[in-house]
């Protein structure tokens, strides 16, 4: 009995020693893989991707942006002379999924660098996990006001801030001669931190310019039946309709407006019309989309920005289609990697502390234009463009120095069914 007790005690002690040794080894390997830029082998960059769930439509193009950059940089000899490997984990479009994904990427996979997932709430969740381990998080789609109010010093958003997206539309409307200017506006938006600031920013400007708000609707993000909200907007009879939408609700509104023969003088949707055939296909063709506006965060096929020609060439070679098929998610993801490349090359290191310092202090170039980060991570130099569907194409119409045509106003009648 005594002998067996001693044996169990020895076994228990041995287990404790083994666990302690493994813990020490784990810690050593963690510190060496995280920040050692001189280590041989590939540089591993981690990110979570929304391959399923609410943002699954955005997950794929985001992944394409990251992958395209990795392929390009590896063909050019890699980053700091080392090949790059992406470690992508599905996050199911939820902040919880993102938290788990980044914990795995940092603490289990020991990636060298991390970049952002898709969407605002998930970007914040990722940045919080990254902050705990001292990682910088460069991301492309977390642009809501709330993202920059978290007190995080490790988040860097390369895209246009959400609150500025519809400013160009409001400015254009207010630039119209008084006789043509609309008198009323209706607003309908998903309860989403990326969308609400867009509408509120435009609403403040339009109301200040004398355009009366006749309807303002906010509806839950998880809904899938938008007909009642469209009814409310239609019943308001507003001259202008501003929609805080993603792809499915933007389609539903336009279809409902057409079905109800409601043709406001201008319609703008925060996103959806910029998704190419994903938007026009369900509508039944580009004719239905004629005249619909969409804000743009700073990139389009013809724009002359940093590496844009090469990006479009590589995209078409790898994924096929045309430049018009390129999603804004892909552009944002690629821009993230452009900033990361410039910062890493500048400091010649993948040390995250030095990287954060560099990102806070320097300016960078991307497909979406110049980038300079405020202390809270907001890109202070991005400019909003205004796009409109005209004759089957989505083209820039405002501001004038980037416009390919004058804005179509008032909107043309809906085509007959």
């Amino acid at each position, binding site marked *: 009995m005594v002998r067996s007790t001693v044996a169990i005690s020895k076994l228990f002690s041995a287990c404790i020693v083994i666990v302690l040794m493994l813990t020490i080894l784990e810690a050593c390997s963690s510190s060496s893989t995280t920040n050692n830029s001189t280590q041989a082998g590939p540089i591993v960059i981690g990110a979570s991707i929304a391959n399923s769930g609410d943002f699954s439509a955005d997950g*794929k193009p985001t992944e394409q942006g990251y992958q395209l950059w990795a392929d390009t940089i590896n063909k050019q000899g890699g980053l700091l002379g080392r090949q790059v490997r992406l470690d992508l984990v599905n996050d199911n479009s939820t902040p919880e999924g993102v938290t788990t994904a980044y914990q795995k990427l940092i603490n289990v996979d020991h990636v060298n660098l991390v970049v952002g997932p898709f969407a605002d709430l998930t970007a914040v969740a990722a940045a919080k996990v990254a902050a705990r381990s001292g990682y910088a998080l460069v991301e492309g789609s977390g642009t809501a006001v709330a993202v920059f109010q978290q007190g995080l010093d490790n988040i860097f958003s390369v895209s246009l801030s959400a609150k500025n997206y519809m400013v160009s539309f409001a400015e254009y409307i207010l630039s119209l001669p008084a006789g043509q200017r609309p008198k009323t506006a209706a607003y309908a938006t998903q309860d989403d931190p990326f969308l609400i600031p867009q509408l509120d920013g435009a609403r403040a400007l339009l109301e200040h310019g004398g355009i009366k708000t006749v309807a303002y609707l906010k*509806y839950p993000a998880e809904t899938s039946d938008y007909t*009642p909200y469209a009814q409310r907007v239609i*019943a308001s009879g507003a001259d202008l309709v501003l929609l805080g939408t993603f792809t499915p609700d933007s389609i539903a509104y336009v279809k409902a407006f057409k*079905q109800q023969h*409601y*043709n*406001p003088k201008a319609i703008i949707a925060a996103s959806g019309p910029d998704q190419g055939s994903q938007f026009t296909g369900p509508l039944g063709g580009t004719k239905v989309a004629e005249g619909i506006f969409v804000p743009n965060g700073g990139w389009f096929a013809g724009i002359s920005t940093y590496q844009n020609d090469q990006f479009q060439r590589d995209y078409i070679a790898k994924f096929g289609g045309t430049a018009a098929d390129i999603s804004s998610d892909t552009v944002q993801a690629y821009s993230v990697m452009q900033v990361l490349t410039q910062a890493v090359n500048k400091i010649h290191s993948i040390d995250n502390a030095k990287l954060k310092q560099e990102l806070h202090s320097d300016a960078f170039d991307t497909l979406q234009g110049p980038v300079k980060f405020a202390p809270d991570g907001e890109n202070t130099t991005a400019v909003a463009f205004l796009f409109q569907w005209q004759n089957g194409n989505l083209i820039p119409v405002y501001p004038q120095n980037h416009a390919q045509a004058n804005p179509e106003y008032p909107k043309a009648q809906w085509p007959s069914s």
Partner: protein
Amino acid sequence: MVGPRRQTSGSHGQEGVPVTLIIEAVILGILTGSVYALMSSGLTLIFGVMDIINIAQGILVILGAYLSYTLEKYLHIDIMLGLLVTIPTLFLLGMGIEWAFMRRIRRDRVMISILVTFAVALVIEGLLNFIFTANYVQLQAPYVDATIPVFGFYLPYIYVFAFILSVVLLTLLYFLVYRTKFGFGLRASMQDRTAAALIGIDVERVQTITFGIGVALAAAGGMVFGATSPFNAATSYDLISRLLVIIVLGGMGSLRGALFASIGMLIISDVTDVVWSPVWASTVFFALLIVLLLFRPRGLYGRLEGRKQ
């Protein structure tokens, strides 16, 4: 078409809600409610006979929509006509799922069925994402966008057709359940599987066919859903949560309950949307659901006795 109203220049403000808007909400609530009844009747039927909560019903609806989409886009088969293909296809798929997975569940059927059907849903979602990508699509047909003026607004034909389709299919289902020998066996199995087996009913066969019917109804629901809303595989999550709420409200296992709960839920939500605020639509509905369940814990038409097996 000359319409009863609409163009622009707003005459309505936030202060008043036009009566036509409420009428429109009620009519659309009834019409879309009937479609939800179609989708949820499959779910409630399966639960009633098998004690199985089919979490995969949402993704099966979307699968039905994708099948209609494939027939319409690649073979140019009208989406209504396509039901002649999609309903039998999903019926066979449903029987296959029952044979492969559900039949194996012997104990704790409710809990384990949730896990198993969730796994089935994830596999189907993955396959749909792989085949069709996550891009949103919508079914097209001449009558999807065409409208008819009714009570001061334009009613899309697709809603009318969907209502007629739902009434026809639910009537057929009613006759199958209450006027046929198979329906007798089905109802006997619903009441007591052991007793049904003792009087010579092949309960396993009844269950397989019932699961097939439940899934086949998803094909019809999916076609209408796909014609009225843009969808991708992820859309199924919102759908299944609605369907589960409907069968809880109507009473688990009750076809009549599914019908009234669907229409009630849609009318309450739609009217609250237009009269008050979209933010409160779900809250009002769930508050009413809680009150109802306090007084009728088994829902509107749930059986007094739970199944004891």
